[in-house]
């Protein structure tokens, strides 16, 4: 048992590596517009709806790094960010709710990405090829996740569940994960302050539930992070008419080619 406990913290390497390639992305876009950003941009950027102050976002990025590494807690970081927001005269960023939302979402994404990475190891993926969406934290006004699941074409399975519709389970490589995500990402969190998370479903149970055949061999996936540092923002620009304005928002962090390809610098 004691072998599981280490006297010194071990870095959450993958997640930190994720964060280390992230850039600060000041944006005046609201949550809905942020969701339309290409995945590669969303994965690499620290942003928050309506926040255009780079000093503040830089400090958010540093705070999330410290929290992800287990060096500090949210109360400490929230207090420092509030004091910064006061000094920068950013009243909208001085409330507990807003600061919690920013810090929880950003650290949640780092945690979620780390969990996703470890789940893509071939042996691990073969043992646990599916996952279940479940309520990990209570909420006063929970979203209707079964409805979202159903609308995305998800199937419900029998067994113990918080929901009368049944258990929300799918293969890890199923498109439903990006479909239900407000951020278009295949890992938790799937929405702001959702309280939902994922747990592994092993091969035997997946077979028993009829999700896979016994001879199913999963293929590990890769995300945009591993596919180079390019992302097309063409469709986004067209959809929102942002054009070069988006280039202004992204500022010096990206170079945007005429075809809409964004290269991170």
């Amino acid at each position, binding site marked *: 048992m004691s072998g599981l406990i280490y006297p010194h*913290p071990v870095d959450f390497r993958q*997640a930190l590596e994720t964060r280390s390639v992230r850039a600060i992305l000041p944006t005046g876009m609201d949550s809905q517009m942020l969701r339309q950003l290409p995945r590669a941009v969303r994965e690499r950027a620290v942003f928050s709806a309506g926040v255009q102050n780079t000093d503040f976002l830089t400090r958010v990025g540093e705070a999330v790094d410290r929290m992800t590494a*287990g060096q500090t*807690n949210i109360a*400490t970081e929230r207090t420092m960010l509030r004091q910064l927001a006061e000094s920068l005269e950013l009243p909208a960023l001085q409330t507990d709710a807003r600061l919690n939302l920013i810090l929880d979402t950003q650290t949640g994404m780092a945690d979620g990405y780390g969990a996703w990475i*470890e789940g893509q190891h071939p*042996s691990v993926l073969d043992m646990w090829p599916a996952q279940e969406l479940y309520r990990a934290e209570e909420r006063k006004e929970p979203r209707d996740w079964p409805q979202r699941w159903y609308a995305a074409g998800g199937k419900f399975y029998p067994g113990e569940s918080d929901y009368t519709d049944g258990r929300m389970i799918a293969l890890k490589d199923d498109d439903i994960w990006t479909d239900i995500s407000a951020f278009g990402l295949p890992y938790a969190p799937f929405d702001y302050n959702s309280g939902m998370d994922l*747990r592994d479903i092993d*091969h*035997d149970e997946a077979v028993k539930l009829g999700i896979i055949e016994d001879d199913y061999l999963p293929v590990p996936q890769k995300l945009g992070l591993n596919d180079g540092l390019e992302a097309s923002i063409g469709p986004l620009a067209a959809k929102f008419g942002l054009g070069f304005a988006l280039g202004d928002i992204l500022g010096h962090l990206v170079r945007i080619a005429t075809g809409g390809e964004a290269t991170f610098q």
Partner: protein
Amino acid sequence: MIAIELTITQDEVSPALRELSDGLDDDRLLPVLAGTVNNSMRGHFDELEDTRPNKMGGSRRHYYSGARAKTTFTVSGNTAFIFTTQVGMRMRYFGGTIRAGAGISSATGKPTKYLTIPETAESYGHRAADFDDLEVLWGRDGPYGLGRVERKTIQRGDSFTQSNAIQTEVLFWLVPEVEIPEDHTMLPESGELNDALHKDFGKYVNRLWYQAGYRMGAPVEN
């Protein structure tokens, strides 16, 4: 004497055994075993999340759910590390003494002299610096807390007023150190982990055996 002659015309066993053996290499087996412990720990933290709400009744910070989300593993060589980066887990598990002085006081800019222990649902999950209406509460032996003080001003003569505290609400206690008792229920019991490891190891070997047979074109019954 009975002699049995065995002639192998096509060796279908050796490739399967090689497949099995390869599957037991550290780089393939350890992530599975680490995944097992990881899942057990996450499941345990889910149980704690359900059964241990904060005692003060304030808005929950979902500490154990956070611990679950921050529990992960990594494999290096022949060792798997399962760890959580949730702040405070180690102290809660082993117990120990937390002393003031590690942090910097937001009020003085100097190393802290006291820890602030929340007393109310309102102060739970917050730092004292989050409140701008707190006063230091003094007792005979020095400061003992931070709180709100309601005062009544009494006129004493023409040019002298006296302000008396008529109600005090303590939000934080000030203490130089705090003892945290060890709590080994923070993690699953070793027997529980061993059971999970044995079970999943068996499943993993079955999978290897099945796949070895499957790849040779002769699926193995299991």
